[in-house]
């Protein structure tokens, strides 16, 4: 498996955890805004994946592996979150981290 493939695997694993939280969290009507923000983050992650798929990466294999490891750590945190409204803010912060990691790798084109 190439470093790019591993990075994609890590991103998709993170995405699955975001989707799990989005699907399983049942907010009250006055709590939907935060969930909307998480949906936006999930959408941004999809576009970063798109950019990664289409990009010619010049980042070193070691750099990509480091990014994968960091994303895997974030995914672990997401996996530990239960689908409760009070966890959505934590999920948003973690999603931001993942997006920043992949955006940094892809912009090194």
């Amino acid at each position: 498996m190439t470093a790019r493939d591993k990075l994609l695997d890590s991103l998709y694993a993170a995405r699955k955890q975001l989707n799990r939280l989005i699907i399983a969290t049942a907010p009250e009507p006055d709590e939907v805004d935060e969930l909307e923000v998480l949906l936006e983050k999930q959408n941004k992650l999809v576009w970063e994946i798109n950019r990664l798929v289409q990009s010619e990466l010049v980042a070193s294999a070691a750099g990509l592996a480091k990014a994968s490891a960091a994303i895997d750590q974030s995914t672990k945190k997401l996996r530990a979150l239960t689908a409760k409204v009070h966890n959505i803010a934590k999920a948003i912060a973690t999603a931001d981290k993942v997006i920043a990691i992949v955006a940094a790798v892809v912009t090194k084109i």
Partner: protein
Amino acid sequence: MRIVWVVAAWSLAACTPRKLIDATVSYAGLSDATFGELGTVPGLVTDLCVQRAQLEYMTVRVTGGKAPTTFAEFYAKAESVIGLPGAKTITWKQHCGGYRVADDAFEAGLGSIAAYGGALRDFATENATSQQGLEAIAASATTSAAALSATDAQYKDALGGLATPIGMIADAAKVKWKARKLRGLVDKTDPALQEAIRILGDFVGTVRSRQVRDLREALDVLRDDLEEIREATGSKPYKIDLVTAMMIDIQMTERITQMESRLTALVELLKQLGAAHTELRKGWDAGEDMGTDTLKTMRVLGKAIYDDIKAFRSAKGSPQ
């Protein structure tokens, strides 16, 4: 006088490398068959991207995101993307449309190799009609590949190098055609043809490892989402009819598997055609003594090519 005529005719027959000409025409036939089939898959990467957008649309709808009610609206909806240079927003339509340059270069590359095959046959059968066609198509391929190199288009690294070998084939054809040197043409074009085939094959491999893999991952996400919904809602259908969802899963899996099978067959086809041209070059280098062997080899490779064409045509998505 009659004796002189007979001797002259005998000399001409002896000098005409009939078997090698037949082998050349045979190669051209294989080239025709190959590219006739490949012509049925225009817009390779763009099509994969549209399928990816369709999966995303379904996923967003399933997870309860704010997706437009039709795919067409979703496809045309501007999305804000962090890392984009310039405008910072993009639609799926623009994103998928961005692959068109690569698709055009790929198709033009295939078209050039096909035109070269046709030109070889016309050369061998002393029909000069396809020379202009080859030049025009090679020019088009060179332009497409150069356009790919000059922009930030996707896959420019994978296909940008195509302009050089295609240009070399066109140049060799121009020079050797005028000199009526069929052997020289086959000999001169072989390295460029092999390089063009290698680039096209690598491109398909890259498409498979990126686009098709991405499709599989996206389908897996959708599948997981549906499972989450099933777990969250028990046996009650919620947000989506689960039977419909399973049908979508089966159909998308079939489409992806079919595409993978076709891409595999396509790479094999290109490799076999490259091998056939190498054998043709070897035959011409060795001379008419090897003509029968070259013709035989061409038939063996021809069978392999027709098998690959069959595999390409009948690629199935589901297990048989």
